[in-house]
């Protein structure tokens, strides 16, 4: 009976206050979309880092079938050439700059490639033979990249030496800046959302002050009196959060998956499914901000 009563109260409150409720939904929708966009950028950065980014700084790619580099004139790197590179890496002249290094065989490379590009159609057209084997080096000081590069570029069987960080770091700094902007916009919008929810609850409490006055007098508990108001705000915020999650999914599905991944087939993009991990966080955030702001409002405007 009490639950039914609370639900009926929520229904009538939402209906009476429809325009305010719609604006709460829209404001939470926009603010949480920005929060989610920041989250999505971070997911995308992680995706692009791939398997090695956080573990090593420098990669020495060995020649493979299709290599055109000058060092690869003799064809794919032979096991001896590979051993030579490994020996050189272990020699004292080089080892002083190196923390440790790992060898990535063609099969390992294929495995990591498949993981990183799992959302891209390119994965189907690549075979392990096409991917170069490589040495991945964790530097004591990443700034000393030049030394490694000079030492190994001319080695037989080495296609190229790459400083991975240099390649990606600029892109990542742009993306990080973009997430920061998204978070700041989200912050402003969240303040808007909190104030708007507070105003909505206040209006709602005012328009139902007769009912709540009588409820107080006949001894209704605080929960029965306040819950409909709190849930009103929470429901509106949850609808906004669901819309925001849906928008992020749509962006990932249609823009990243449908458009960008065709334009840039060699970039690893997040899948639409991955954005759904953001949904619970967004809904939780919506519930939290609606709940807190309505509780604070009710404490002031709905005495029990």
């Amino acid at each position: 009976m009490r639950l039914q009563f609370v639900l009926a109260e929520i229904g009538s409150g939402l209906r009476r206050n429809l325009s305010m409720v719609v604006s709460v939904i829209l404001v939470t929708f926009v603010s949480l979309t920005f929060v989610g966009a920041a989250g999505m950028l971070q997911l995308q950065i992680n995706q692009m880092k791939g398997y090695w980014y956080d573990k090593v700084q420098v990669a020495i790619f060995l020649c493979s079938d299709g290599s055109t580099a000058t060092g690869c004139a003799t064809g794919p790197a032979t096991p001896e050439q590979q051993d030579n590179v490994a020996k050189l890496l272990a020699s004292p002249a080089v080892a002083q700059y190196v923390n440790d290094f790992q060898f990535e065989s063609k099969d390992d490379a294929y495995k990591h490639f498949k993981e990183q590009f799992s959302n891209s159609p390119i994965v189907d057209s690549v075979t392990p033979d096409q991917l170069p084997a490589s040495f991945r080096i964790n530097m004591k000081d990443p700034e000393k990249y030049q030394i490694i590069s000079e030492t190994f570029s001319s080695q037989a069987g080495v296609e190229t030496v790459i400083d991975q960080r240099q390649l990606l770091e600029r892109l990542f700094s742009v993306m990080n800046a973009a997430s920061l902007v998204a978070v700041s916009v989200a912050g402003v919008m969240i303040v808007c959302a909190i104030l708007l929810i507070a105003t909505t609850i206040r209006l709602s409490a005012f328009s139902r002050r007769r009912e709540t006055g009588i409820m107080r007098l006949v001894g209704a508990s605080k929960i029965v009196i306040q819950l409909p108001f709190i849930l009103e705000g929470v429901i509106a915020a949850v609808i906004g959060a669901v819309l925001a999650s849906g928008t992020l999914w749509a962006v990932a599905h249609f823009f990243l998956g449908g458009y960008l991944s065709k334009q840039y087939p060699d970039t690893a993009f997040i899948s639409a499914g991955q954005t759904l991990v953001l949904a619970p966080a967004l809904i939780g955030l919506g519930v939290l901000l609606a709940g807190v702001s309505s509780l604070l409002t009710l404490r002031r405007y709905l005495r029990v």
Partner: protein
Amino acid sequence: MIRFENVTKVYDQTARPALDSINLEIDRGEFAFLVGASGSGKSTFLRLVLKEDRASSGAVYVAGQNVANISSWRVPRLRRGIGVVFQDFRLLPQKTVFANVAFAMQVIGKSRSVIRDTVPEVLKTVGLEGKENRLPHELSGGEQQRVAIARAVVNRPGILLADEPTGNLDPTTSMGIMGVLDKINQNGTTVVMATHDDDIVNEMRKRVVELRNGVIIRDEAKALYTSMIPVVGQSRRLRDASGRDAEPAPDPGGTTRTEVRDAGGNQL
């Protein structure tokens, strides 16, 4: 049922207290009128009983419990034991008579079947059978007040507080309302009624507690609206003798002047 021990209530430090060391006890099943001019402290008294306000000093006991010791989440339980009726009825205009009364039961979680059984019974007690589906604006003032009384007593409170319940009603209708309140009182509910209505007080011949400027100046059983003994000093003596019935009720024969003056020949 209600006991005030040296209760003082100060709203504004610079002004005189709304209630000034009041001592009063109202027993279970009693019917008491609270009379006095506006600002004499009647409403403050009722608010303190409901724990709408906190006494500045002294102790208020309701049903044996000091309300100052009731934690805020237990206040609803205190209020379930007290029904309240107002001058302006305070019905919900978009709800029917039945729904208005049922509302008081819904919000404290009574089951639908209990509500279906109890509400018609209470409506019958207040004399509204057959009007369950009317809306408040389709009722007369007296009928609306009966709905409000039904709502106040539907959860069977031990105490009914009425704040000028007949203030908006004509004398005949008021008498009808008093009949309802009397009936509720006979069923064992303690009734405390704040009023200006001298006709009613004179008609009912119940206990009268008169307040003036926050002080009890009279407390008589089976009394009239205006006393023959309007001496402040005496009331102080009455109060000191723990409240009530310290003096025998005045001889009814001696009240003639009061009746003439206050009721203008309308009396009794």
